[in-house]
């Protein structure tokens, strides 16, 4: 039984090792991310404002759906993000489990609420959109169902993390669950597709207009980019708060809080 000594005691080799080593230290991460966060927020705000302006005022109303299609600018980016964030959470979870890096644990766990929120927004906006277009809030369509299952997976990760007391143990357990869920997610996606097409003809096609007008498409793409910055900013902000909370009795936090006050 040989336990790896903490990374701190190892001789430093090259720039990459230096960087990883530094990233692993909470005070350094806190300071570094503190510089990054304002920029991320700024980029997000300007991109989102631009996209919304284009989408809400410049793009013409859809000839079939009228004004309601503008929900798309919320719905589609959040649906995309819901899946992307799960993937990144699982990858970070894997790294955290294998190398026991605390910062990555914190990052993975801070991703979960953001991802769950996006999933929820995708579901809610989709439901609201469904009412005028399909005449019902909910159908057991393949895409809807797998998005619902994704929400359950997120809730499972969050629930498990919150149910266990010791923060590192909780994070490790939830990371493992995130990885297992990630293995299953594509399987769920495809199985739901087959299931759905078997029973009833695909009377509903979510990918209604594939060749949509560029004036409708551009705002969507810009918005999709904007939410990535939102994710980064939100994630880092959450991680910073969580680190402060966890290390509240440590010297570096006292110093940070003292600095903030003065």
């Amino acid at each position: 039984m040989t336990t790896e000594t903490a990374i701190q005691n190892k001789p430093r080799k090259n720039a990459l090792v230096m960087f990883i080593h530094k990233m692993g230290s909470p005070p350094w991460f806190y300071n570094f991310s503190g510089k990054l966060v304002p920029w991320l927020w700024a980029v997000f705000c300007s991109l989102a404002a631009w996209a919304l302006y284009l989408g809400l005022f410049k793009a013409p109303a859809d000839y079939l759906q009228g004004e309601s299609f503008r929900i798309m600018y919320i719905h589609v980016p959040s649906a995309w993000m819901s899946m992307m964030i799960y993937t990144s959470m699982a990858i970070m979870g894997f790294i955290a489990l294998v190398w026991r890096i605390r910062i990555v644990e914190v990052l993975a766990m801070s991703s979960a609420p953001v991802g769950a929120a996006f999933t929820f927004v995708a579901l809610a906006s989709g439901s609201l959109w469904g009412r005028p277009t399909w005449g019902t809030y909910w159908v057991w369509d393949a895409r809807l169902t797998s998005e619902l299952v994704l929400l359950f997976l997120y809730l499972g990760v969050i629930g498990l993390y919150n149910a266990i007391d010791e923060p590192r143990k909780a994070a490790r357990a939830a990371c493992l669950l995130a990885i297992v869920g990630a293995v299953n997610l594509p399987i769920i996606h495809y199985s739901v597709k087959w299931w759905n097409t078997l029973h009833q003809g695909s009377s509903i096609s979510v990918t209604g207009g594939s060749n949509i007008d560029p004036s409708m498409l551009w705002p969507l793409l810009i918005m999709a980019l904007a939410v990535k910055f939102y994710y980064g900013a939100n994630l880092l902000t959450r991680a910073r708060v969580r680190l402060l909370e966890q290390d509240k009795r440590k010297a570096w936090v006292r110093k940070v809080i003292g600095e903030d006050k003065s």
Partner: protein
Amino acid sequence: MTREKSSASLSGAFYALLRRDLLLAFRRRTELLFPVIFLLVVVSLFPLGIGPGPQLLARIAPGVIWIAALLATVISLDGLFRSDFEDGTLEQFVISGHPLTLISLAKICAHWLVAGLPIVLLCPLLALWMNLPVESLGVLMLTLALGTPVLSLIGSIGVGLTISLKRGGQLLSLLVFPLYVPILIIATAAVMAASDGLPYTQFLGLLTAGLITSVTLAPFAAAAALKISLS
């Protein structure tokens, strides 16, 4: 670190554990019947709750039997590692130096024999109750035979993660039911295809693939989960 284990001692430990778990399950002869009766009771709730129309029952039969199987599995899952965790036996397993993966696998096998196999064997009776056409019965049994081990395997991961929590039951079902969705869908799709006279072998192939994948991966994940829960 701990001495290397010979494969003889490993298989000895595996069988010892399997035997013990079966002994525990069948401590009293009446307890042999519990899973079976649970299934019968749950399935019989449906005609009572939904009304006895034979066509309707036949239509929903595969789904109902499979959902009952899911529920029976989840209810029995809690016993998979909990008692070993609470009385300190799991610590003893870790100390023994036998790989935790092997231990998980033994316990999963025992769980399937106790909670999964009875479902497979009971399925003709349930199908009869639910007016399922005889042609689909064979397929239903096959899907259950292939699918219930997967339920035990995937479930073991969820149990491993939640045993250190006192009120793990509801959280456990939140964790595992989403993972069970593909099995449920594929299995019921197979039975429905069979009863519509459509080809269904591709579904059975998928189930087999799922079984193979989860046999190779789940015990490792369960072992990792247990290790985390112990710490």
